[in-house]
């Protein structure tokens, strides 16, 4: 009775010893399933996307033909399509700047002044909204910004109704109402990605030796000078690291442009419409290559700024 059990144990031990000695085999066995998944499902899909971006879309029969063409990429340069790219780029830049301006003081306060209970409180208070449901956060903003909603109520109570009217009348940032204006869209984008900006800045400020700031003040620098010449340059990798998120996430988003802000396509909405309503997968694929290239360039720039060490 005991023999098969014993040999079973011996076999298991032999396998263990074998794997321990041949650790490369062990490594391969462990790595194979995840690599297969990512190699086939993910990289394979990206490749399929790239291939499709070179396919021909027949305008008359509304079908996709597997015949190679550069036409989709040429179409990207048409004025109407190029406008979409520029509009998305401008919004992504604006969102990153806005997030940096708002996120920096918060991160600075977290590192320098939040002690005791405040430390844990601030950390979790930034983390929670970051992970909270994305679609619900956006939905909540449509409720807040709606005409007759909370934002309008507070603005009218503060007697700023006319100020808002004239602000919304401005070109480029304005719109009919808060929820259909560029301003509203900028606000929602910034809200959704702000925590992604705060955390990297916080970790990069944490690594700055506080003596440097004291020394700067001792040597007679005003707070503004210390900020410009000491704090900001040293915290810059964190700012750039944060902007990777704010920029790239804005660049590829299509839910917020659909729900908040004026009409006019973003890259994300264009991709969605092209593949869904029109069925022009090749053009949609060509449009997705734009964020891939822009984000690739941006990551190269960020790496050169040392942002990856701040992540």
């Amino acid at each position, binding site marked *: 009775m005991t023999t098969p059990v014993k040999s079973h144990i011996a076999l298991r031990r032999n396998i263990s010893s074998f794997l321990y000695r041949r650790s490369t085999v062990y490594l391969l066995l462990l790595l194979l399933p995840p690599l297969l998944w990512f190699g086939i499902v993910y990289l394979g*899909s990206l490749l399929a996307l790239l291939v499709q971006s070179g396919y021909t879309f027949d305008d008359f029969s509304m079908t996709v033909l597997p015949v190679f063409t550069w036409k989709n990429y040429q179409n990207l340069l048409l004025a109407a399509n190029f406008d979409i790219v520029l509009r998305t780029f401008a919004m992504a830049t604006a969102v990153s700047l806005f997030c940096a301006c708002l996120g920096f003081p*918060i991160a600075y306060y977290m590192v320098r002044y939040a002690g005791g209970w405040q430390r844990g409180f601030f950390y979790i208070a930034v983390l929670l909204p970051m992970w909270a449901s994305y679609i*619900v956060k956006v939905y909540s903003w449509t409720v807040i910004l709606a005409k007759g909603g909370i934002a309008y109520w507070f603005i009218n109570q503060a007697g700023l109704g006319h100020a808002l009217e004239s602000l919304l009348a401005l070109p480029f940032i304005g719109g009919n109402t808060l929820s259909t204006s560029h301003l509203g869209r900028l606000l929602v984008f910034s809200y959704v990605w702000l925590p992604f900006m705060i955390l990297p800045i916080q970790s990069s400020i944490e690594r700055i030796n506080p003596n440097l700031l004291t020394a700067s003040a001792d040597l007679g620098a005003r707070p503004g000078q210390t900020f410009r010449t000491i704090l900001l340059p040293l915290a810059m990798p964190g700012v750039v690291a944060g902007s990777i998120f704010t920029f790239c996430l804005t660049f590829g*988003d299509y839910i917020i442009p659909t729900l908040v802000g004026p009409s006019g396509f973003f890259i994300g909405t264009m991709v969605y419409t092209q*593949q869904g309503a029109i069925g022009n997968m090749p053009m949609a694929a060509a449009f*997705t290559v734009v964020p891939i290239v822009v984000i690739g360039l941006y990551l190269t720039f960020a790496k050169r700024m040392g942002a990856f060490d701040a992540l």
Partner: protein
Amino acid sequence: MRSDGKCPFWLKFVAFGGIFFLHFPIIVIAAYAFNTEESAFSFPLQGFTLKWFAAAFARQDILDAITLSLKVASITTAAAIVLGTMAAAALYRRSFFGKETITLIFILPIALPGIITGIALLSAFRMAGWDLNFWTIVAGHTTFCVVVVYNNVIARFRRTSQNLIEASMDLGADGMQTFFHIILPNIATALLAGGVLAFALSFDEIIVTTFTAGPERTLPIWLLNQLTRPRDVPITNVVALVVMMATLIPILCAYYMTRGKESIEGSGK
């Protein structure tokens, strides 16, 4: 680098104002779910009621969406835990040619915008001639959830002493025994935290799902459909609160599970 100097008032104001700004929409959702009014978003709120909760949970389409989301998130989490742990176990100690590239590939699905992952998967499914169904949603979610588990587990592996594993093997335990008695207890909370985050991420995912879902509607997709043609506002508010809670509670759990884990048994040599 805490400073004893006095904090300027404006900085304190911006910091606490910023935190308030981050939480304001969450508070709004919580408040509106109990609002008595039927059709609009007017403010101030009209009154308190629980009747929309009853109405929402009596709707078959909402229950179906919740069930589907739970199913997808559970299977995704299981797959992400298995794949993420294997990857972490393989990569935490050895360095070899191509390791950086492999790490990058794991991170890519979450670093690139969801729309790219989504449309890439869709184009691959179409080229392969597969119909979109439950499993295509799971495949999409698993792809970006692996990295969450991977990150949590690899951090724990790096802090787990290699001596423990070697001691276990020296004392005659085989691989399975070492795994169940030494490795698993050490990485258990990291696994749980990673799994919980993966679950929340999958439950809430919308962008990839819009591309990889067929006729099925997950809860976020149900919500998005409501938003593009507004009706049943009070019920939408209730569902929004439910989705919000389903993401917030796991995050809090994960935070408390991984907090203060700097000292691990055996790490002091």
